[in-house]
């Protein structure tokens, strides 16, 4: 059996900076990072607003948000698929089977994670800051950016969790991206493909590359956060 040979093949692909593999890695990072940035830009203020404002249905909203953290990627993918399909409401945009569609699907997956964490963190911080900020004449709306900025170290963890989810999922991007070679093939869909070809060592090798990338990004964010935390107290 050529098991070890395939694994060597994986290592060779990586260390020879195989152009096809580099393209796949670049696409994975681009799609997942974009999804995380968009989701964070939307979810951080939304989470903070839910934390600060009282309105009817707030409890239900928080519950739904928490539940959506467990939204199966396949379901998210299916929803985006139905939305972007020619037969769907946004079909005319022609976005299905493009990286943009994958970004949309992953944004959908990451949003609840970041929003739910943002709500929790900001709610706790508001408890601590409320009197002081109100004393300074800060209303709840104006408090959102202040609290988000002061909670930035805790929020980074949530954003990283979102990135972890985006970079690890295969179900959503497979459905809306189509795993098209050279266009929408990402690390996870390539791993799924190699697995279904029975090329398990290569699949595992790719999996380790993915893990390494995610680990590097996490470590970088963690280091940045820790050093800033030490400086800022």
């Amino acid at each position, binding site marked *: 059996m050529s098991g070890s040979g395939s694994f060597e093949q994986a290592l060779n692909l990586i260390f020879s900076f195989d152009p096809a593999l580099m393209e796949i890695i670049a696409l994975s990072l681009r799609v997942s990072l974009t999804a995380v940035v968009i989701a964070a830009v939307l979810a951080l203020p939304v989470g903070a607003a839910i934390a600060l404002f009282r309105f009817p249905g707030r409890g239900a909203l928080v519950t739904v948000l928490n539940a959506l953290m467990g939204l199966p990627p396949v379901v998210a993918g299916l929803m985006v698929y139905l939305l972007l399909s020619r037969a769907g409401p946004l079909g005319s945009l022609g976005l299905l089977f493009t990286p943009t569609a994958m970004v949309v699907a992953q944004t959908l997956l990451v949003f609840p994670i970041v929003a739910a964490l943002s709500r929790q963190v900001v709610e706790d911080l508001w408890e*601590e*800051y409320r*009197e*002081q*900020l*109100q*004393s*300074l*004449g*800060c*209303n709840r709306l*104006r408090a959102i950016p*202040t609290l988000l*900025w*002061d909670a*930035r*170290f805790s929020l980074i963890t949530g954003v990283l969790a979102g990135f972890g989810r985006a970079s690890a999922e295969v179900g959503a991007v497979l459905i809306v991206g189509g795993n098209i070679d050279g266009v929408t093939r990402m690390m996870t869909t390539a791993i799924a493909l190699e697995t279904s070809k029975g090329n398990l060592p290569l699949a595992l090798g790719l999996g380790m590359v993915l893990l390494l990338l995610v680990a590097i990004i996490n470590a970088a964010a963690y280091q940045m956060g820790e050093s800033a935390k030490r*400086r*800022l*107290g």
Partner: protein
Amino acid sequence: MNDMAISERLLPLQLNDVSFRHRNQTLLQDINLQLGVSGRTVLLGPNGAGKSLLMRLCHGLLDPTSGTVRWALDNRSWADIRQRQAMVFQRPVLLRRSALANIRHALALHGVKRSERNTLAMAALDRFGLASLSARPARVLSGGEQQRLALARAWALQPEILFLDEPTSALDPAAVKAVEDAVAAFQALGTRIVMSTHDMGQARRMADDVVFLLRGRVHEHAPASTFFESPQTPEAAAFIRGELIW
């Protein structure tokens, strides 16, 4: 201060039949109190008498369950009235940014133009001997420095009235002195002072008049000399002697 503040004064503050209930407990009741345009009022009373609550009601952080809290400028917006006040808490809440940025943030909330914030913030830091610490993260300052920064932040806002809720209870003697000097500086600027304390010596040093609270009611309100020399009630007398009363 800006023109508006000069043209009309926020004070006096009038509290009429104010009560405050929380979870079926009456914490303050029958509060009738007038705070005049100048001077230093010290709130005294045992723990749980309602000193902090009363200050928060005056400052507008809490709304009374019944009764009214009325400023002389009652026709102005909530935001306008709030901008003419400041409060320093027992434990200052400082943002995770530099000392200077903390003051800039407060100035921004008060609508001060961006171009002016830095100068005003530096001046306030300088006034309280914190200029050399301006770039330091606020959260890593010592307790005394943090409280001075909170005072500098209040200073930059040029309030007409300053509330201080036991501002020195967590500080060492040198820092206490710095806070008391700061309060004196505020008063010299014409700022109305309302503070609570547990330190009887501090109360004697600083009070022009004393509001003595007991079990959620104003038990006595008198000029400081009168209150300390000849308290009108046995409870106040016992409190001044340092006997615990509830």
